[in-house]
C-alpha cells in the first residue's frame, strides 16, 4: 500500500474507531445536534485523513442534499459524510463541512461515544431550531 501520508492533530480529537487514525478536533465542532440512523453525529469545520466517495443526492429531514461519504484513508471504514450542496439558503452553512458519526469514531481518551450496533451510515439529519 505504500507509505500513507497521515496528518496528525493535537488536542482533544476524534479518531477512527478501528485504526485510531486522527480525524477531527473537538475545537472544530460546529454543531452536536445531528442524527442519523446510526445515532448521534457532529458537524465539523474540518476533517483530515479522510477520502471522499461519489457525490450522491440524499433526502434528509431538512431537504434534498448532495453529499459524499467519508472513508478513513488508513482502514477504509466509513466514518460519516461531507455536505457538498444544500437545497436552500437556510441549509447553506453546511456546505463544505463534515459529519462524523459518533458510532464510528472514538474520543482521544478512548471512550466510544456512539454505543450500540452499527449499520449503514444513515441518510437523515435533524437541525436544532437554534441554528
Amino acid at each position, binding site marked *: 500500500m505504500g*507509505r500513507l501520508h497521515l*496528518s496528525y492533530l493535537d488536542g482533544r480529537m476524534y479518531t477512527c474507531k478501528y485504526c485510531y487514525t486522527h480525524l477531527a478536533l473537538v475545537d472544530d465542532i460546529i454543531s452536536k445536534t445531528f442524527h442519523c440512523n446510526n445515532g448521534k453525529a457532529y458537524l465539523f469545520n474540518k476533517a483530515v485523513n479522510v477520502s471522499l466517495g461519489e457525490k450522491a443526492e440524499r433526502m434528509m429531514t431538512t431537504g434534498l442534499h448532495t453529499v459524499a461519504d467519508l472513508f478513513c484513508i488508513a482502514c477504509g471504514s466509513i466514518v460519516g459524510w461531507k455536505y457538498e450542496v444544500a437545497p436552500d439558503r437556510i441549509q447553506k452553512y453546511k456546505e463544505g463541512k463534515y459529519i462524523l458519526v459518533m458510532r464510528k469514531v472514538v474520543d482521544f481518551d478512548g471512550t466510544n461515544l456512539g454505543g450500540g450496533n452499527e449499520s449503514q451510515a444513515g441518510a437523515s439529519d435533524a437541525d436544532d431550531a437554534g441554528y
Partner: protein
Amino acid sequence: MEMSSSDKVGTKDLIRRCEFVRVIIQSLYSLGYWKSASLLEEESRIMLQSPEISLFQSQILEGKWDESIATLDCIRELSPEARNSAVFLILQQKFWEYLDRDDTSEALVILRGRMSQLGVDKGKLHMLACCIISRSKREEIGRKLKGGDESRRKLLNELRLIIPPSIMIPEGRLEHLAELALLLQHERCIYHNSPKDSISLYSDHHCGPDQIPTQTLQILHQHEHEVWYVQFSNKGDYLASSSRDYNAVIWTVAGDGDISLKHILRGHQKPVSLVAWSPDDKLLLTCGNRELVKVWDVQTGNCKVTIGKGSSGFSSCAWFPDSQRIVCGLCDNGICIYDLEGVEHDTWRGERMPKISDLSVTPDGMNLISICDEKDIRIYALEAKTERVISENQSIMSLFVSKDGQYLLVNLNNQEIHIWDVCGTWRVPLKYMGHKQGQYVIRSCFGGFDNAFVASGSEDAQVYIWHRQSCKLVAQLSGHSSMVNCVSWNPANPKLMASASDDCTIRIWGVQQARPSLKNHAHASHGTCI
C-alpha cells in the same frame, strides 16, 4: 574567380555579407593568422576597420593621448556624448599614468583643465582628486599598475563599449555567436545527459532517449515487504534501501553498475521510512516510521547508536555536513539536534513548534529546510538565524534538496512536483506533472549530468522522468507491478538509477549499451520514451 555580389549570405536572408566577412577577419586576427586576415581583407575588399580606427588603436596602446583624441574627432559617426565619455576615459588613463610616475602636478593640470570641461559627473572628478592626495584611496580603486600595456588594453576594451560596434567590432564576436548557437542547442536537447562540451559545431546537436536510464538492468529481491526508500551514497559506490519489513539493506555498487548485497540492517520494530547517508559515506541513518533513529557503520553493518528511546518518535532525520551531527524532526512537534553519541545538542520543542514531516540540511551547511504543518517549506539560515517560508496550497508529501544546495524539490498532494530555489529569487516554482500521487508518500529526486532531470515515483507503478529546464516529460518507465515509492539517481554515474516499489523489489535502471544481459532471473521490461 567569380565573387558573388549578393548582399546576404546563408539560406535565411538574415546575414549581411559585409558583416559576416568582417567578423571572420576579426577572428582570423585573434587566432593569430595575420597573413590570412590581411589577404582576406585584400580579396574581399572589406576592411576590418577603417584606417582611422587602426591608427586610434595603436595610438592608445602607445600612449599617444593627445593624438588619439584628435583621431577620435575625425570619426564622424561618434555622437557628442560618446565622444565626451571616450575623451574622459583617455584623459583618465593619462592622469593615472602621471600619478603612477608620481608626477602629481601634471596630473592636477589634466584634472583641472580638459577633464573638468567635458561636463561629466562631478563625483568622478572628486574621486580622482582624492587619489592625488591619498595613496590608500588609490589602492582602494585597485590601480596596481605593473606596466602600461595591460591597463592600456583594458582602456581599449572600455572604449570599445562606447564607440559604436559597427566602427569598432567588440572582441571575439564570431566565437561569441558560435557559443550562443551551441548553448541554444544544448538547451533544446531534452535528453542531454553528458558534459556541455560534447556538442560539436559540425552538426546540430540533439540526443536521443538512449542517453537516459530507461532499461531495467537488475531487479533486487531482498526485501520481504514494500520497499519505501532507496538512495545511492554520495560517491555513488553504495545503495541503501529501507522497507516495511522493518529492515534496511546496504548494497555495493560495482564499477560496471552491478549491485550486490553487503549488509542487512535489522533492529527496527516498525517499518523503516527513510535512510540517510552521512556526507562522508561512512555512516547510515535509518528512521523507523514515527519510531527511533539508528546510526549504522557502513563497513561493518553494526548499529552504533540508537536515538530516541522514550520519546514519541521521529518523523524524519538528516545529517549536518560535518558528518558529526544529525537533526531529527520530532513527532510531538519540534526539532532536535544530536551528536554521534546520541547526546542532545540543541532542541526546539513546545506547543508552538510546527509539525515537521521532512527535513534536510543543505550540503554547505547554510540552511535547514523543513516541511512544517504539511504545507509550509521553511528555509532557516543557520548562521543568520533568519527564516523564510514558502507556503504551498496543497499538502507536501516529500522533500529533496539538490547536491549543490541550490534547489529543493517537493511532491504535492495535487499530483504536481515543484522546484523552488533556496535563495528565494523565484516568485513561482517550476512545475512537473503527469504522474499519479494521492495519499501516499511518493518521492522524487534530481539526477543525470548537471542535474538535468527530475525523476519521481508514482502510484501507477511507473517511474517518471522530466527534463528539468523545459519541464517536459521525457520518459515513463514501466516494469514495477505496484506503486513506485521512491527513486534515486546515482550522483557519480548519470546513467544509473534505482527505484523502490510496493512490489517488494528495487529496480536498477541504465542505458542500453551498458549491459546486454539481465541479472537475477529478472523479467525484462522497457521504458517508453516520449
